[in-house]
């Protein structure tokens, strides 16, 4: 079973709940990120994204220098623990329409799982499966194993296809690159 422990990034961009929306924009720009985990009393309390700033500050006509991050962040925060199955996190993302889930151990923020990273992992597996299936082709004595691999591959592709529809554009973009690479590899090995 794949767990969160192997798939989270350890550096997380954070901001204090009392900082302003303008501070948040500055921090996102400086760190080239689209979201910040909002910290209150040493624990993660919410998450604020560039889209939140657009919808709740810029569109609303609020003064960014006088609006607290706590007033525009998304809460309650969905979090995962390092021991959680990765599947559970993907379900959380899908159920709440989110792409990043902070990882908390003993009430302390230790990292974040990004959908992009999970997708990269799925693509890697797809690639392994495709490679496995290719190697097995023609080995008659191992045909059963080949069929199994091909079935797995087909199922995973179908799953990936249906999941793609629900993903955010960043994640899709990343998956596009992964799939493209995979397609190239499959093609080059055919020749």
């Amino acid at each position, binding site marked *: 079973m794949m767990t969160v422990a192997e798939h989270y990034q350890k550096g997380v961009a954070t901001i204090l709940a009392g900082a302003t929306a303008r501070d948040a924009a500055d921090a996102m720009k400086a760190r080239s990120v689209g979201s910040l985990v909002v910290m209150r009393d040493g624990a993660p309390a919410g998450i604020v994204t560039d889209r939140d700033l657009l919808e709740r500050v810029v569109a609303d006509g609020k003064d960014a220098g006088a609006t607290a991050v706590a007033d525009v962040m998304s809460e309650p925060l969905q979090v995962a623990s390092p021991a959680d199955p990765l599947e559970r996190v993907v379900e959380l993302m899908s159920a709440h329409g989110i792409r990043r889930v902070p990882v908390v151990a003993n009430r302390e923020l230790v990292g974040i799982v990004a959908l992009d990273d999970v997708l990269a992992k799925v693509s890697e597996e797809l690639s392994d499966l495709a490679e496995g299936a290719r190697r097995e082709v023609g080995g008659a004595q191992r045909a059963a194993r080949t069929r199994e691999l091909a079935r797995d591959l087909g199922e995973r592709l179908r799953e990936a296809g249906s999941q793609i529809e629900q993903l955010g554009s960043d994640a899709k973009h990343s998956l596009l690159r992964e*799939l493209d690479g995979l397609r190239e590899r499959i093609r080059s090995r055919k020749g």
Partner: protein
Amino acid sequence: MPVGDYCEKPAATILGNETVRAAARRLRDEGLGSLVVVSEGRPIGIVTDRDLVMKTLCSRLDPGAVRVDEIASRPLVTIEQDRSVEDAVRTIRDHAVRRLPVVDDKGALVGIVSADDLLALAAGELSGLAVAARAQRPSGSGCGRQAQ
């Protein structure tokens, strides 16, 4: 397939003289991620949700006072509608853009194609490959078993 047959039509647009705040409201209310900025009937740039935030708040500008054409990404990378989808993929990759406005031979806006749309195509192709691979596969063992 020509990209003009595949792109989303029409593309969401905004006039260059509207404010960043007006653009932000459009994106929020219509659930959009970007708007093509149009001036005198021609696409001249594009603004994304992130642009609207970063290019005003980080520069201490008032979103209610800044015009969209002041912060739009220019020059706009576009593709002609009769070019192929593969050309669109290449253009998106070469220019590191996520959204590509599609224009006619006179430069008028026809629609827009995104990396997301092209991903759906790529995924479809991959599934096709998987089906093809399966059909070609266990010829040896399959025939052998049938013969027994």
